């Protein structure tokens, strides 16, 4: 994973300067639905403009800069809307941009490299991508919909609409698997698959895998360490009758 220079970001920081330091933050802005033309705006200005809580924005930015999620920040339930949007956008980026790009590199590599092993790599990736798709679709359709309903329920302060036997803690597992296979692919490309005349395309493919991995790592941490605990907290609040 690329090591970003470790700057703990504060609300007064200029977003453009942060990006010069760690370009991966461009992806983060995109996931927040913030356009790249950020001019000279500070973090605080951007947050205000896009209705994102400063704490939440800073905590994600610092995650991208290599810090642990802060334990002192308490996220509010209204943050869930933004977090869900962020996660949905990230999924879209994976499904519509990143994975197809990787797939096309593999196809190009295959054209330059007529080994039977390449056929297997293609198959490996397709199977892997199918698993990823299934997982992301599950989150998009089941988990996020559930959380949206839960949130509506919370806003109306109704307990009755809590879905009886589903809980957000039911899903979590898949992530590790997704990251393992990505690692496998990198190892195959760097250590084992004989190189024909595919040097350039292999490098592009590897860069692309590293990029995906960087974003995926953070994505997983946001889901596991911020999103799920917050949803669980909301589940508890609803179950206990809003602290009555």
């Amino acid at each position: 994973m690329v090591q970003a220079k470790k700057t703990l970001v504060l609300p007064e920081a200029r977003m453009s300067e942060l990006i010069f330091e760690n370009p991966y933050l461009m992806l983060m802005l995109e996931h927040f639905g913030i356009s790249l033309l950020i001019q000279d705006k500070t973090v605080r200005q951007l947050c205000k403009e896009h209705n994102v809580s400063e704490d939440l924005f800073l905590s994600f930015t610092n995650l991208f800069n290599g810090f642990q999620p802060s334990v002192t920040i308490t996220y509010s339930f209204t943050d869930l809307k933004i977090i869900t949007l962020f996660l949905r956008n990230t999924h879209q980026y994976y499904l519509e941009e990143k994975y197809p790009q990787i797939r096309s590199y593999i196809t190009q590599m295959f054209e330059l490299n007529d080994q039977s092993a390449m056929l297997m790599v293609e198959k490996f990736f397709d199977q892997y991508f199918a698993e990823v798709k299934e997982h992301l679709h599950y989150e998009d359709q089941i988990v996020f919909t559930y959380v949206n309903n839960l949130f509506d329920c919370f806003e109306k302060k109704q307990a009755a609409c809590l879905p009886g036997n589903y809980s957000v803690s039911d899903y979590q597992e898949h992530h590790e698997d997704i990251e393992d296979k990505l690692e496998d692919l990198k190892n195959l490309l760097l250590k084992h698959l004989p190189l024909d005349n595919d040097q350039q395309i292999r490098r592009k493919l590897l860069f692309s895998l590293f990029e995906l991995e960087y974003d995926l790592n953070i994505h997983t941490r946001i889901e596991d360490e911020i999103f799920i605990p917050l949803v669980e907290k909301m589940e508890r609040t609803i179950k206990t009758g809003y602290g009555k």
Partner: protein
Amino acid sequence: MVNNNIHIVIIEPSTIIYEGLSSILGYSDDHFSISRLDKMDDIPNYTMRKTADVILINPAQVENNLKTYNTIRNGLSQTKWIGIIYAYFDQHLLSVFDESISIFDTPESIISLVHRTADQSEDSELSTQEKLTDREVEVLKLLTAGNSNKEIADQLNISTHTVISHRKNLSQKTGIKSVSGLTIYAVVKNIITLDNFKE
């Protein structure tokens, strides 16, 4: 890779020194993971849960506790000890450590010293070498043919526990965890042919 992580424990009362060392080491290499303990007495408790490859320690901790130091040290044969020097200490005291670093050393020399010291303490060199043993090759063949751990154990007359440990080594040596990834590896290295695979 997580497999050959070098686990470093720093025992240093000064936060400035600790933070300095930990960021120099932490940013040099993904394979370093760093923890901090307050005092030497905490080591036995800690190492019961986690192994420490290298312990960086302020010699003042050891100075009047040589006996405790030796006891702890004898209990941890795999661990290497490095003194952190930023004041004058008696040469005799320093000789109880494997190595020492001065706070005036360059980051590069500190990093390379920690690496060298850690490499002596474990056979990490060996285990990351790619050469597979005959037994591992057999396990790999059966694995790629779609056998479960239990089936492999039965066919090779070994316990499932042993199969799992062979699989761990396979993943460590090749960097590949999934069976489908290992299958590609096995074809590339001519351990199995594509015909085996199609069946």
